[in-house]
């Protein structure tokens, strides 16, 4: 009897210990791997980070899967892009999670696009214009200057959620800031050769990167966002590219590359496939990803 109650108390105290351990770190649910990677830079061991998507998934079209609901249920902080990028799945995850702390307006709800200047904000809203976003182009993570702005805001949020370790986040943010600025100078220098280069893009995915590196976008494969190009549209593109050529076609890792390959062969322009985000699940960092982007962009202009 005594040993049974002792083992029961042992079990209960184990549970408590487990609960205590669970409280020791913040559970972070990142909608995209770039925010998971940024959280890792800013929080280090204080955060338990889960990325809902991989770099090879299209974040517009994710299923509100049971596994994601379970992860959202446990999260202390949800970091997403916002700007309606996750409109097809995030609202459902939040509602089903039964987690009060991550609802919109709560400290545990962080949308990166709230803290940067948006490009391509539409003047007119019409579904004929494709998968347009009321708030503008949501792919803000492709400009490292945005990453820096978001890092500052995210640090404040981490401090608000975990005030006992505010100094830890402050220190890590300071380190990240100087390292990131050094890295940006390096990327800028290395990318000199590609600045002003004329490029064709597949989707409006890289608009912020184009803005950062002063690339010159001469054409887009998708006639309107989210709609695959028709053969007629491709033929028109081919013709216009004969009049004013481009040095490369920039494609995104997760997209259907068949029309891109066709245009590349027809117009004789090389394809550069850029990974859409950090390969967080395999330990890649934000630095490594931008390094890779710059390397890949430099290839056709070497």
């Amino acid at each position, binding site marked *: 009897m005594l040993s049974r109650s002792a083992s029961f108390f042992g079990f209960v105290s184990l549970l408590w210990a487990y609960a205590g351990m669970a409280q020791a770190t913040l559970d972070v649910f990142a909608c995209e791997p770039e925010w998971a990677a940024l959280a890792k830079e800013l929080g280090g061991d204080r955060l338990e980070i889960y990325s809902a*998507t991989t770099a090879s998934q299209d974040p517009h079209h994710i299923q509100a899967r049971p596994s994601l609901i379970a992860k959202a249920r446990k999260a202390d902080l949800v970091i997403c892009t916002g700007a309606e990028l996750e409109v097809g799945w995030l609202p459902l995850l939040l509602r089903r999670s039964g987690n009060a702390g991550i609802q919109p307006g709560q400290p545990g709800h962080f949308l990166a696009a709230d803290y940067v200047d948006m490009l391509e904000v539409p003047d007119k809203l019409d579904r004929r214009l494709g998968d347009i976003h009321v708030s503008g182009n949501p792919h803000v993570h492709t400009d490292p*200057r945005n990453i820096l702005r978001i890092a500052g805001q995210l640090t404040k949020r981490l401090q608000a959620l975990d005030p006992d370790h505010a100094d830890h986040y402050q220190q890590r943010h300071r380190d990240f800031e100087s390292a990131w600025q050094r890295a940006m100078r390096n990327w800028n220098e290395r990318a000199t050769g590609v600045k002003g280069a004329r490029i064709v893009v597949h989707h409006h995915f890289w608009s912020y990167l184009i803005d950062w590196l002063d690339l010159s976008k001469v054409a887009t494969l998708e006639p309107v966002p989210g709609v695959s190009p028709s053969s007629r549209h491709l033929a028109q593109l081919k013709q216009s590219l004969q009049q004013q050529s481009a040095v490369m076609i920039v494609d995104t890792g997760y997209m259907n590359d068949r029309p891109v390959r066709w245009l590349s062969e027809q117009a004789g322009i090389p394809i550069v496939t850029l990974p859409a985000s950090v390969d967080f699940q395999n330990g890649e960092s934000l630095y490594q990803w931008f390094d890779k982007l710059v390397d890949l962009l430099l290839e056709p202009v070497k």
Partner: protein
Amino acid sequence: MYITSLKAALACAVSMNVAIAYGATDIDELNNKLEEYEQRIESLESKQAEDRPYGSRTSEYSSRKTTNNLFNPAISVIIDGVYASYKNNPEDYQLPGFALGGEAELSPEGFSLGHSEIIFSNNIDDKFYGQFTLAFAEHDNELEVELEEAFFETLSLGGGFTIRGGRFYSALGYLNQIHEHAWDFKDSPLVYRALFGNQYFDDGLRLSVIMPTDLFLEFGAEAFSGSKYPAGGEHDGVGSWVVYANIGGDIGVSHSWQAGMSYWAADKIEREYGGHSHGGTAETPLFEGDSKTIGLNAIYKWAPAGNYRERNVKLQFEYFDREDEGNLTLLNSGPPEETSTLDSRQDGWYAQATWKFARSWRTGIRYDRLDSDNNGSDIGVLDEAGLVSNGHTPKRASVMAEWVPSEYSRIRLQYNRDDSYQVSDDQVYLQYTFSIGSHGAHAF
């Protein structure tokens, strides 16, 4: 202004440093210092950028645009229509062993309006979410508007708990919670048609909890008024109730699954089946007694690398088993009114697979099967009500193909080889479903 004065200070500081460091003539060190100051300026500049006020931000943590239409609810309108062709007369449709009720009848032959809907939804405040669904359908040239959903749901209970109240679709089955426009086939599985009159909703309350585990584990309980088919009648308190559990997860990035079970019970109900005319007056079977239903379901989805939009396979299986015990009366029969005891066991299942093989093309197959064992004191009464199967087990095989040019439009062609009753039927549907307005999120 601040930045410029800082730059001046920097120039001053650098020249001072030069004065001091000149003796050492360490140019590298000077460059390093210069770089360090530049960094500090850049960081100050970016800090300034961060601190920019956003006029439209209402609180520290709220986002710039919180809703689809600012403060209007998100509205989506579903336009649905069908062209139906049958070999048999759709008016003759029956399921031997199952008396039909609810919305169990077939779509009329030729062109008809399908199941068009208007869905309003939004967060009510920081504590509640609300949804309101009106369905429009035409029966015998009369437009019928039905309030299918009008519920609130809590957002801030925490601990994984959610309460939903109002009118809503029960969680007793996987397909039961999915709006008709999001079904993979034009018509409901036979088991839903036979047991729930297509879909089961009622007015009530649901409490559900998601467990804090990596594996998705959900438990829930629902209490309903019990006035809607397949329950029915007046109840002082809770007329019908449901308990359910769901479990699910991922296998790698490409596979995901969910399985669920449920139990539905309703005591002292008055279930009125759809009447059938018998030379003038309609004899309507009425079941009075206790009813319970067990449900099982399993769903598996595969999408290469988790890119569901490009290609995917979905497998779906559901099983229901119902037991009824009480009395059966044929209203408007006699006099005297024909009546019998009823001890009934009805079950059925369906299995389906859909395959999205290109971005805008999808195809699918489905197989349905029902079985029943109904007994009573007067088999003649059961027979009148359609509850005698005469050894026939209703079954149906379906195949469909659809063109999905965007998330908002779909055109579907479906063929059923229908053996619901003894005379086989060939059924062909050409269906269009369009959604305009806000982009609703769809459940798994």
